[in-house]
């Protein structure tokens, strides 16, 4: 037993001394008084240490509850953030696809008006044939636009995943 390493060095020493006295049948009233005083002091120590520990546990428990609440809030905020990022990406991708398809539609419309329309007028005798072709072109452009939107969205997601992967690699 080492005085510098045993927290209860004094108490254990007293107990050993008293036991030695018991073994040698040399216990006097004075020894019993001393021992009972030391025992009383030990109870006082136990009281104060238990109270301090209880307070520490209470603090720790409250801190844990607070951390759990903050974690839940962070999770919720992350979901919100992800939804917002998705919406923003969707809007950006949608705009990009619309611009491309608008350009394509314009080119097709000019081509139809300049090349196809005169040919239809000269060779096909169906009323509103040119208008019908324009309608078909509109449907095709719309289908292409949503396909293009999906393609850009997938590309955007891959880009985000790659950035996240690089961040994870940077942390580890």
């Amino acid at each position: 037993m080492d005085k510098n390493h045993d927290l209860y060095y004094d108490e254990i020493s007293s107990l050993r001394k008293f036991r030695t006295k018991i073994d040698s049948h040399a216990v006097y009233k004075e020894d019993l008084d001393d021992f009972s005083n030391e025992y009383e002091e030990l109870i006082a120590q136990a009281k104060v240490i238990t109270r301090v520990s209880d307070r520490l546990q209470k603090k720790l428990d409250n801190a844990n509850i607070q951390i759990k609440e903050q974690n839940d809030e962070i999770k919720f905020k992350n979901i919100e953030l992800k939804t917002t990022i998705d919406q923003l990406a969707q809007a950006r991708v949608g705009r990009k696809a619309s611009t491309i398809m608008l350009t394509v539609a314009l080119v097709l419309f000019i081509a139809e008006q300049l090349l196809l329309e005169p040919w239809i007028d000269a060779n096909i005798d169906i009323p509103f044939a040119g208008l019908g072709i324009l309608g078909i072109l509109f449907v095709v452009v719309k289908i292409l636009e949503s396909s293009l939107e999906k393609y850009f969205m997938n590309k955007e997601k891959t880009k985000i995943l790659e950035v996240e992967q690089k961040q994870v690699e940077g942390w580890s």
Partner: protein
Amino acid sequence: MEKIFIEPTRITPLINFDPDEGLLEMKGRSSPENSIEFYQKILDNLEEYAVSGGEQFTANIAFEYFNTSSSKCLFDVFKRMSRIEDSGKAITINWYYEEGDDDMMEAGEDYSDLLDLDFNFREMEED
């Protein structure tokens, strides 16, 4: 008896023991790896002060946090102070605690009650 000055760390408090001035200051956080090893020198010096120290003794204690084994060492520190008082010297113990830290104030009350020592409780404003 010797002067003791220990700089505070993340896990040990500031210690300033000046036997000539009859002053002990302990301030900060206390959760050392080995509490008894950290406090033993102070305990030995206080023991000596009770026998051969000056007539006045002042302790300024301001803990933010202390762990369970430190609470046992603090009990021993106050027990030594009780002996200093029993030896007929005038003793003043100032127990500082941060504003609103009722737990720390109550810890001081526990030591004061159990060792029958008079503490001056002083609230500190948070930095």
